[in-house]
């Protein structure tokens, strides 16, 4: 016969054993983290000596960069406009493609639940491949120029935006959707009537974010020959023409900052 007190003591002892188990697990996690960083440090080739040697070199280059070379400013403006346009067309295309995919990839409202997982896999694949990589492929397929960049941006953003849209739809309150369905409306009608008004502002805001993000991302697309200001950036670097390089970077900074401000202002208006 065990008394109540004894049972309580046994429960405490059992909990204690559990606690030591937990402590062991904590140690294991710490050790794993430490090992992870040690291996990463080696793999990343961290070498502080190289940095010490390289920094003064960078400083000398920067010194030669002054005064900036402003002769080609009109060309840079054109190239930057190209970059902004690439991002705008690519993002818009991506969002138009993302809307139907978001409905398919939304567990709660998809008309074909069987396609839910394939749709998510497809979007994850698009999301997993950077627009830079897509652009590389399209430069080979459609040739050098901004069009390849547009396609690269569109594909990557399609996956990312559709996943975000699907998440918004999944977290939307389904009451109004069910209510509108119950009036005899079809599924698509109910989605457009009951869910879209609620998620449209956040979707628009996401779209602006992606445009802004793609402008920044596509400054480097030129490096693989996919048009825009990045191409001039790479040319200057290859020729070690630092006055030109500084001008280009300054132009990029000005445009990206202005766009950030503009889209931020617009998003605040939408909220």
């Amino acid at each position, binding site marked *: 016969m065990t008394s109540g007190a004894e049972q309580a003591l046994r429960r405490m002892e059992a909990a204690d054993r559990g606690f030591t188990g937990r402590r062991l697990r904590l140690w294991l996690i710490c050790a794993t983290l430490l090992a992870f960083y040690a291996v990463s440090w080696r793999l990343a080739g961290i070498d502080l000596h190289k940095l010490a040697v390289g920094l003064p070199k960078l400083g000398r280059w920067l010194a030669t960069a002054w005064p900036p070379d402003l002769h080609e400013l009109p060309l840079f403006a054109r190239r930057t406009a190209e970059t902004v346009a690439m991002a705008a067309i690519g993002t818009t295309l991506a969002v138009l493609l993302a809307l139907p995919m978001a409905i398919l990839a939304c567990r709660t409202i998809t008309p074909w639940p069987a396609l839910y997982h394939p749709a998510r896999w497809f979007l994850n694949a698009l999301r997993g491949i950077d627009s830079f990589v897509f652009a590389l492929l399209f430069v080979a397929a459609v040739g050098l120029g901004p069009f390849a960049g547009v396609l690269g941006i569109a594909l990557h953003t399609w996956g990312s935006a559709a996943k975000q849209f699907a998440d918004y739809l999944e977290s939307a309150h389904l*009451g*109004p959707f*069910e*209510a*509108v369905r*119950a*009036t*005899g*409306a*079809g599924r*698509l*009608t*109910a989605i*457009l*009537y*009951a869910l879209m*008004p*609620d998620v*449209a*502002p956040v979707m628009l805001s996401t779209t602006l974010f992606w445009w802004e993000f793609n402008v920044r991302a596509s400054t480097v697309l030129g490096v693989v020959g996919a048009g825009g200001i990045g191409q001039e950036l790479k040319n200057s670097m290859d020729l070690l023409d630092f006055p030109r390089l500084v001008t280009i970077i300054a132009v990029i900074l000005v445009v990206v900052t202005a766009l950030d401000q503009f889209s931020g202002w617009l998003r605040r208006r939408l909220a």
Partner: protein
Amino acid sequence: MDAPLPANGMDQGEPLMRAEGIGMAFHGHAALADVRFQIHAGELVAVLGPSGAGKTTLFRCLAGLARPDRGCVRVDGQDMTRATGGNRRRMARGIALVFQQFNLVGRLTALDNVLAGRLGHVPAWRGWLRRFSRADRLLALECLDRVGLLAKAGQRADSLSGGQQQRVAIARALAQRPRLILADEPVASLDPATAAGVLDLLRGIARTDGVGVVCSLHQVDLARAAADRIVGLADGRVVVDLPAASFDTAAAARLYSTP
């Protein structure tokens, strides 16, 4: 099928809707067992019962949102639970729903929300573009007027008070021109005075439009004041089915003391 029946008070002829032995189980636990009752045109039936009695499951079955495991729901003699496609949609639009949480689209105006009631009657593109005919807009405004909210037509639904939102939801149900209104705990989120107003409104609709109204409630006195008939649900079964006037303390005790 569209137009409501003429006002005919307590017509006890062929029932509008008949639940025939509905049974439904979740994970082996019976939520509903052999539920049978009828709803006639022009009457307001209150469904009472303790929490967990299966009221919400019953409403989902009656509304066609859930399919019962056993039994069926007949509307005009047709089995709604087995209907498919266009047939199912035609039957669905004859039944309007009112929810405890109103379920309005918050960012749309009161008028747009009421117009949603027309979606089962108009071509899909009208819903997609939110473009309704003049006749439908007029009907929707009349429905808003009926619930006393014509002045709020252009206001966003999420800016209205709870009682006003429930009235808009009732206007949406009216715009559907239903033969039957199912209201699941329509006043549970409202204060007592507002609740009584909403129930009066529902009873008026039943009387003048000849619409059958089924309304689940959890307050006996509200049910006794508003309903023509009271159906008591306990543990998934109908244990009381009486005219409201005969629903006395003994009946209430029977309903709420069932283990």
